């Protein structure tokens, strides 16, 4: 279970990244959604023991991330946003180094690395320097680390950013095979839809909504999205959300679509995405 109780983070420059955030989740895959600056990465870094909160409490599997940081570290694997492999080192060297940092013996680290590199499709390039690999392969090194760690909780901050659709599908299939609990941060709605058991929607460091995708969508089952008219502006696009029974007035004039997770993101974002 991951928990936050009145969790607040104020950076040195005065930016409040998390504002009295309180939630708990015991879902196998919980996805943090929100616009840039919503506080997703800050929350992930606090849960990963990489960053200290300003106030409040955060727990992973019952352990306080500040007081019991060493116990938390034993049970998590955290892949930071925009993590890049070291160009001169090979995928195999990355995995062995990471696993020994997690307390594996050399023998086990080598064995597990070999197995996982085969599983994620990096076996053929296991000894190649990482700077000779494609973007997708580079990203897969980190996914392989998360898989190899065999941690109780895996925290992944935007694991598929910049990947082509095929590589993204590959990463999704790997993530689905991980037995651990996963805390996922993403900007991709389809990724959240594909992988999440529960979604936590953040805006300006506050909890906006929490629940399964079905639960969240069911709150808007009587609404539809109308494109071309409305107060919400996203670039040149105007959007409004109207009652389903009033949609007939718009047929033929505007594009009408059912509500998706993307709309939840826009609605719960609370304001125009241009702001």
């Amino acid at each position, binding site marked *: 279970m991951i928990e936050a109780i009145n969790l607040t983070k104020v950076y040195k420059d005065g930016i409040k990244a998390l504002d009295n955030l309180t939630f708990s989740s015991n879902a196998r895959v919980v996805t943090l959604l929100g616009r840039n600056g919503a506080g997703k990465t800050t929350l992930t*870094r606090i849960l*990963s*023991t*990489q*960053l*200290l909160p300003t106030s409040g409490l955060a727990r992973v599997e019952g352990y306080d991330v500040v007081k019991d*940081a*060493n116990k938390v*570290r*034993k049970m*998590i*694997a*955290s*892949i*930071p*946003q*925009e*993590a*890049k*492999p*070291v160009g*001169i*080192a*090979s995928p195999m*060297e*990355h995995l*062995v*180094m*990471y696993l*020994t*940092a*997690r*307390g*594996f*013996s*050399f023998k086990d*680290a080598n064995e597990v690395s070999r197995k996982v590199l085969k599983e994620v499709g990096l076996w053929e390039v296991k000894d190649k*320097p990482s700077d000779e690999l494609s973007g997708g392969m580079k990203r897969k090194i*980190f996914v392989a*680390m998360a898989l190899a760690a065999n941690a109780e909780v895996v*925290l992944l901050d935007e694991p598929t950013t910049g990947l082509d659709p095929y590589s993204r599908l590959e990463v999704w299939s790997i993530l689905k095979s991980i037995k651990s609990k996963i805390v996922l941060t993403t900007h991709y709605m389809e990724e959240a839809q594909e992988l999440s058991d529960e979604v936590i929607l953040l805006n300006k460091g506050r909890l906006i909504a929490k629940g399964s995708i079905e639960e969240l969508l069911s709150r808007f089952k009587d609404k539809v999205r109308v494109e071309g008219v409305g107060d919400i502006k996203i670039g040149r696009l105007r959007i409004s959300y109207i009652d389903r029974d009033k949609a007939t007035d718009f047929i033929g004039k505007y594009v009408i679509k059912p509500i998706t997770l993307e709309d939840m993101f826009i609605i719960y974002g609370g304001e125009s995405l241009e702001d």
Partner: protein
Amino acid sequence: MVVKVLKTKYILAFTIFYGYSSIKRGFVYVLTYLSIPLAELFLIYIITHGVFVRFAIVGGLISVIANNGFSSIGDFVFLRLESRLQDLLVATEIGPSDYILGLMIANLLYSSPGIILYIILALIYHILTLVNFFPFVIVMMLLLFTTSAIGFFLASLVPHTRYGWGLAGLLSSILTIIPPVFYPYNFLPKAIYLIMLPIPTTAAAILMQGFSNLISVNRKMFVLSFLILLIESIVFFFLSVRFSRWREK
């Protein structure tokens, strides 16, 4: 006890990951490490008609070791801000001391061709003997420890990657050229070399110039230089582990 507390498997794995892989796949960097001390050796040889070549060899050895430590600023900054490897490792069982030692030994391995070359030169020129071998090694280890710890501490203060390598280069140049690393320390007025004594390369140079009988160093100066280097290695390592940026505030 210390070895038990430290994550030795990780340190070894990191040495292979960052040091051995650099030698294997990026040999041009190894040559870069060597180029400046060798150029200085050449210059000193030409200018002094070979008279100061033994100082230049001792200086080259100090320079390779010190550059190793100072250049780790660039590595630490890169691994923290660009590759995000530090974040990845913070969330594991290792601590900052394992991390610093891992990078220190990786860089030592990486610059080992330079060290070996200078050791060969030191043997050829009878600078390094059986008598002074262990004192030499101890001074080199203390210097490496001190400069690496300074490197990690300063690196944690660097806010952007673009400053990392620049600062590393600047410190390497200033702290290996201005202090009496490539020339006899007593060329400087006493007041100046005493002011420079807290610079780890100065203390190391005085000790090594003395151990290799290049110059007469009195007992007081020996003890003072050694104590400075020893205390600095402990204090800077403590400061870097305790106060540098590992888990971010």
